[in-house]
């Protein structure tokens, strides 16, 4: 087990959104602007690292029959912290992310990593795994929202990209735009994989 390998697997080879297809619900919902994507990615990364840390600490004495409720309680604690911090310090972001902050509790990525990794590995590697997955999730959100915000709103992080003659395609910041973007990115990654596996 190498540190770099555990860190980078979450970013590319098993990226939670593009490879594991986890956490698609918030991905579809919040990627209409890069600003929201960064906020959501940051919140999820914090919860992911913290919950991986705690779950890994208590993994030896949690009975396996009740492990899911215990994990959910741990995750919900950190989500509450994020929710209140965001409401206090970034009220605008909190308002635009809305219900999707509390819903991080049931985000498959976080429970998935607690169940698949943190409950079986030591504290250090669980932290690294949480960090890698969090960065991977954030990068995926930023990638998707970059396409959607530029095409659907003509801006990137709120800054206009084109001149005023550009008429943005409203559909891209509506729900179908998220499906199209994710589909094309996954198709591109699969094509890249197939190409590299054939050549090697």
């Amino acid at each position, binding site marked *: 087990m190498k540190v770099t390998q555990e860190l980078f697997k979450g970013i590319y080879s098993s990226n939670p959104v593009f490879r594991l297809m986890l956490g698609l619900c918030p991905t579809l919902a919040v990627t209409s602007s890069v600003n929201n994507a960064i906020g959501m990615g940051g919140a999820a990364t914090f919860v992911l690292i913290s919950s991986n840390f705690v779950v890994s600490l208590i993994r030896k004495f949690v009975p396996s029959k009740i492990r899911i409720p215990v994990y959910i309680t741990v995750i919900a604690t950190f989500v509450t912290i994020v929710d209140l911090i965001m409401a206090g310090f970034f009220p605008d972001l909190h308002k635009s992310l809305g219900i999707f902050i509390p819903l991080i509790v049931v985000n498959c990525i976080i429970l998935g990593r607690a169940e698949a990794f943190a409950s079986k590995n030591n504290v250090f590697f669980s932290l690294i795994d949480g960090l890698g997955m969090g960065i991977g999730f954030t990068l995926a959100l930023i990638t998707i929202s970059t396409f959607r915000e530029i095409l659907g709103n003509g801006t990137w992080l709120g800054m206009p990209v084109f001149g005023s003659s550009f008429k943005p*395609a409203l559909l891209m910041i509506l729900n179908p735009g998220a499906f199209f973007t994710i589909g094309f990115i996954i198709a591109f990654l699969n094509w890249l994989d197939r190409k590299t596996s054939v050549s090697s």
Partner: protein
Amino acid sequence: MDKNFYVSPSPHIKDRDSIPKIMYSVILALVPAGVGAVYFFGIRALYVIIITVLSALVSEAICQKIMKRPVTITDGSAIVTGILLAYNLPAEVPFWLPVVGAFFGIVIGKAVFGGLGFNPMNPALIGRAFLMASWPVYMTVFNTVPKNGTLSGISAITSATPLNVFKHAREILINSSSFSTQQVTEATNAMSQFSSSYGSLFWGKVGGCLGETSAALLLLGAVFLMYKRIIGWKIPFSYIGTVALLSWIFSGNDGLFSGDALFHVLSGGLILGAFFMATDMVTSPITFKGRIFFGIGCGIITVIIRLWGGYPEGVSYSILLMNLTVPLLDKFSRPKTFGGK
């Protein structure tokens, strides 16, 4: 041993129909409506049609090149998609709009699913739905007054297409308490004058998308296609019949059974949709019962959108939605084989 029997699986007798033959027949059938569009809306209509068709062809060629499939743009299917999309656009759209629409329709509607024969939904309608959701301003404003006609088909009202007038008048009559007496009177007048617009609607002297206005020219092409047995009677007739029945029952302002069925059949894109888009071979059911149900489903959704939905016209969405049910309709309506249970 030379004179052996050839053993091969069925079918043994093959039809001479081919994709190009069918597609070029459809194109031929669509020509009268196109000529009508140029006559009614001016030379700009021709530019829109040509631009849309060329963009569809180029998009198809690019997709097939990138996906390393044989380039089959001469089979006419992309031309049909382009023409149908152009017929669904207002005459005064900016010229980049059909380019984007055709590209989206061909790429998302057809190429990503595997090309012609694998598309679950009509590519032209995908293009239209995309344009409708993305740039509603360009897609819903009709300003070009047709030659020798009015936008509404009613001489007293000159500002909106027939279905827009209907939608607005109906809204006023349903919530009559929140509108002024004068508005209610005007709405009642408009409702009662629809019967005077039959002639304009039939010949196409009303506002609307390029190819949808003239029922007469569309029916000319439809009869040709029916004679050639390229489209059947089941989908168009069950579709139009359902719309006529439901609009007769529900669309009137004196309670049930007082609606103007003929107005609803002739206005909007119903004739174009029922004969040329719902009957697309790839995206419609293959069984007898399946086609009837498909037409009825399209009719129900169209009337629901026209009477209670947010848009004045629902033909394109109804066909897209019913396209998605085709695999199920085919599965549940499969006829029993002779002797089977």
